[in-house]
């Protein structure tokens, strides 16, 4: 387990950013992932005093602070009404309620984890991240950026009219997903976000739904690991995409 020399509750984003430029220091969200690592952290930089634990909803968007927990997004009525319960569906099997009361949206998105249900679902929505220095960046672009020493301040989800369905396959209820899949229809196009390939989620777009399941199965790069083989994952991509499209059609 990681050791920590010093703990600081940053009193401004500028303070947190300055501290974070030292490679020995680390921003902490829920610290659940960080804690399982090895080595030593010089200063653990806590953002908990910066009011980033709130979800703000306006006519145009949801602004989700980096310290908002996965449980907060699971039970947020506005967000789940907008996204047809897909956000709750995405996080509901992540370990347990106690875990989701701690794991943060900031840590989950920043980590760009291959297995992430969180990244998968938000990629299929009209999402952006606000970085302290980097400004507002589409989530799709952020997912492909190399981690640097910036700070993720909030996740923004625009209320673009959209329908979305989330599904995942797990070997056991609270295990990491074998495959995660979010399919949406927005601005006249279909989107499929496929995660746990086992690599980081990728986003595909298509004007027509007709051959989307086959297209996704052919074009999403997959690999095998202890949870499932590459061939099984390719099969799951087709099945989950097809089922999601049926769901979008109301079948």
């Amino acid at each position, binding site marked *: *387990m*990681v*050791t*920590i*020399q*010093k*703990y600081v509750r940053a009193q401004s984003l500028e303070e947190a950013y300055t501290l974070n430029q030292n490679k020995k220091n680390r921003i*902490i969200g*829920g*610290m*659940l992932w960080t*804690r*399982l690592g090895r080595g030593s952290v010089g200063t*653990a930089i*806590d953002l*908990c005093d910066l009011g980033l634990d709130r979800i703000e909803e306006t006519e145009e968007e949801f602004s989700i602070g980096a310290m908002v927990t996965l*449980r907060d997004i699971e039970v947020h009525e506005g967000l789940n009404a907008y996204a047809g319960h897909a956000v709750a569906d995405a996080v*509901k*099997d992540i*370990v*347990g*309620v*106690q*875990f989701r*009361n*701690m794991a943060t949206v900031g840590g989950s998105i920043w980590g760009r984890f291959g297995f992430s249900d969180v990244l998968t679902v938000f990629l299929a929505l009209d999402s952006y991240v606000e970085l302290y220095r980097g400004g507002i960046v589409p989530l799709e672009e952020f997912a492909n950026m190399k981690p640097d020493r910036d700070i993720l301040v909030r996740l923004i989800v625009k209320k673009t009219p959209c329908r979305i369905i989330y599904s995942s396959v797990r070997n056991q*209820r*609270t295990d990491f997903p074998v495959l995660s899949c979010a399919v949406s229809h927005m601005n006249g196009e279909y989107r499929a976000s496929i995660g746990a390939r086992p690599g980081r989620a990728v986003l595909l777009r298509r004007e027509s739904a007709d051959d989307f399941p086959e297209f996704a199965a052919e074009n999403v790069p997959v690999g095998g690991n202890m949870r499932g083989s590459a061939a099984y994952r390719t099969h799951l991509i087709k099945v989950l995409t097809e089922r999601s499209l049926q769901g979008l059609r109301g079948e």
Partner: protein
Amino acid sequence: MEIKLKLNGRNITASVESDTVLLDFLREKGCLSVKRGCDTSNCGLCTVLMDGKPVLSCSALAVRADGHEIYTLEGLQEEASDFVGFIADQGADQCGFCNPGFVMNTIALLRENPDPTDDEIRAFLAGNLCRCSGYDGQLRGIRNYLNSKKG
């Protein structure tokens, strides 16, 4: 670092290292119901309530409790006594090791949702692992408790 918190209803001040986890701090303070099972945030045995919400004390820094209110089973005996007998009646506890985590999270469940369905109970308690039972005993116990309240 010095921290100030409310533990089981009492204000306390203590000195902790930056990386002391809440679990070790609470055990040092005599709250021995708080146990370490997996230490990897998977089993739910170390559940405590922070500002009323269930969290995993094995994975929370003690410094994060500064300015907050923590409850362990030691401080919630009365609330727990309402339903633990129903769980025991089902023989749900075999070795009993998982029990404090289950009880703490059941308290959180019933506060948030006083009349849960079986699926809601399963979903809320999914993060509490038990190596001895098949979870049915715990579910039956909670169900019987809820039925008994309805008369």
